[in-house]
């Protein structure tokens, strides 16, 4: 049976391993900072091809897919929709592209830009939302005096009194019940901001997975079952209030599919995405008068698809590059650290112990650590039977285990004998 003091020593070693695996790799990468590539992908209606803006700390590069580099002044006319204001200023905005007359107001209206980051999908905000008056007749949206929650019913809490507005709560709860809503809400998606041109309220997933559209029109509830299938398994929705009024929201599903919820009776249109993992990758959708460019940004690469306005694929591009693990520092880190524990990650807002394992190269340092540990125990005249458990910790945790071993230091249970 393991003596209690041996068990505590192992526990202490494991705590030291944890601390080392959090801070040592962190220090190591602070000293060997790897510069991330930043590439913005666009589709030029002039070249009918992808063009790129690549940036590093020194410079911004403008290039096309054939590898030709441009100056900024040469590049901007290739993206007349993105740069229409600058081109107007320079008198270079074309009157017609592909037979379509170019009107700045229309260009501006059709320019859209959406981004879905993994951290925002994982994030669960405070489940209190302002329900704006969608048809106030005022130019600007105004913040309501109350906030709603949807638990066993829809409740409005008036901020100034911090009390439930029973009348409004009953009114909206009844409207939801009438529409077949199952309480409580699983998720609520919307833009709780007055800085938008108009309000489309919220998309709410009920307890059975059905998606409801809720807003307030002239003080009355607007609650509608969208008919979006419950088995779609939506994990996130990005709602957007855009004057274009083409779609209400973008829905990301558990199967890494992406749909837009159109203004046409909430019908779903699937967006073509490739190699998308909502837990790890950022999804970017850029749209203009002619095209939609859908880009999946990965840690070491990207996949882009350009579609027409009906989301039919026109072309695709992509690139991958070696990440930090391929640099000299990365190779050293792989040999040195059998695993790394991060408490914060870019892909989630929450703190946890995120473990990332190295590959077989870590055995190199682990074996050296083990040899050192065995030599250490031999020198201390501690029998191998007694040291076996500690050696197991060292072989499994490599350099961290060795640090733990040297920190714990005293392993003889009965000093009278040594």
């Amino acid at each position, binding site marked *: 049976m393991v003596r209690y*003091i041996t068990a505590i020593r192992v526990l202490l070693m494991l*705590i030291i391993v944890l601390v080392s695996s959090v801070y040592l790799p962190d220090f190591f990468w602070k000293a060997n900072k790897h510069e991330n590539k930043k590439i913005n992908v666009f589709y030029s209606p002039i070249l009918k091809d992808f063009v790129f803006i690549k940036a590093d700390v020194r410079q911004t590069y403008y290039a096309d897919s054939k590898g030709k580099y441009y100056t900024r002044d040469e590049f901007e006319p290739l993206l007349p929709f993105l740069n229409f204001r600058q081109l107007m200023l320079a008198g270079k905005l074309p009157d017609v592209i592909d037979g379509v007359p170019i009107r700045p107001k229309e260009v501006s209206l059709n320019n859209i830009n959406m981004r879905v980051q993994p951290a925002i999908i994982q994030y669960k905000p405070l489940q209190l939302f302002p329900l704006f008056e969608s048809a106030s007749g005022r130019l600007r949206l105004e913040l309501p005096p109350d906030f709603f929650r949807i638990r066993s019913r829809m409740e409005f809490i008036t901020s100034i009194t911090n009390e439930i507005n029973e009348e409004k709560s009953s009114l909206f709860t009844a409207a939801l019940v009438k529409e077949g809503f199952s309480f409580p809400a699983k998720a609520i998606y919307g833009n709780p901001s007055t800085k938008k041109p108009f309000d489309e309220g919220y998309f709410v997933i009920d307890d059975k997975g059905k998606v409801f559209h809720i807003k307030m029109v002239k003080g009355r509830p607007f609650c509608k079952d969208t008919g979006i299938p419950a088995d779609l398994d939506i994990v996130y929705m990005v709602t957007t209030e855009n004057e274009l009024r083409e779609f209400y929201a973008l829905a990301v599903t558990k199967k890494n599919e992406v749909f837009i919820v159109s203004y046409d009776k909430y019908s779903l249109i699937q967006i073509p995405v490739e190699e998308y993992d909502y837990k790890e990758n950022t999804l970017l959708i850029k749209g203009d008068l002619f095209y939609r460019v859908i880009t999946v940004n990965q840690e070491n690469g990207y996949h882009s698809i350009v579609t027409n306005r009906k989301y039919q694929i026109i072309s695709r591009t992509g690139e991958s590059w070696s990440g930090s693990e391929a640099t000299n520092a990365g190779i050293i880190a792989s040999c040195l650290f059998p695993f790394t524990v991060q408490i914060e990650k870019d892909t989630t807002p929450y703190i946890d112990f995120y473990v990332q394992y190295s590959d077989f190269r870590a055995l190199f340092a682990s074996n050296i650590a083990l040899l050192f540990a065995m030599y250490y125990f031999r020198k201390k005249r501690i029998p191998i039977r007694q040291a076996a458990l500690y050696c197991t910790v060292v072989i499994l945790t490599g350099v961290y285990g060795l640090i733990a071993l040297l920190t714990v230091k005293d392993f003889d249970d009965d000093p009278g004998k040594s």
Partner: protein
Amino acid sequence: MVTAMVMKEWLKVRWIFIGLAVLHGAALLITYYDLLNTFKIYKANEVVIQFITFEVVFYSKVKYVSLLTGLGIGIFQFFPELNQSRLKLTLHLPVKENRLIFQMAATGAVLIIVLSVFDTLILSLITLRFLPREFFDAMVTTTLPWYLGSLCSYFWVMIVFVEPNWVKRILMSTVGLGIVSLFFEGGGYAMYALSMGHIVLLTLFSSVIIFLSAFNFKRGIW
């Protein structure tokens, strides 16, 4: 024997405990008046939307006071033990050393828990007085890691002070610093929502390490 031991520990820490209780009270009072004044100056709905959007931790003072509590009680409880070689005598009492160490640690831990419960109660009253229940839920999950961090810092102070070897003391201080830092990361609401179980385990594991320090201490004085 237990009562005598608890009384001995209480006598050592009573003044720092009272001082810390006053500090906690002051931090909570400042939190209350800050919130009260915010609601006096700005419209209530504007305050709420700002709090929701930016996850304003209006009780952040409790974070620092909690850390100070763990360190303070730990230092005041164990510095005299070491400085005046009292621990040497204590561990020679006709009682098992682990039981004595447990009683000493439990006394300090209970005092920290008392202050943490006090903070939670008062913060609950403040939060529910001004804000909806969601903020109360967020407050509980946001502050829990701080209280656990307070306990953990106490245990590591104890581990460091009881440890007889100076080199190991420095090493243990470094490990303790690393562990305790893990409880005070992040700035928004409920940042530890996914890792609550892990940090509870880390606190429990830290509390057990004290027995190794005691073992080393007793062995060192043989």
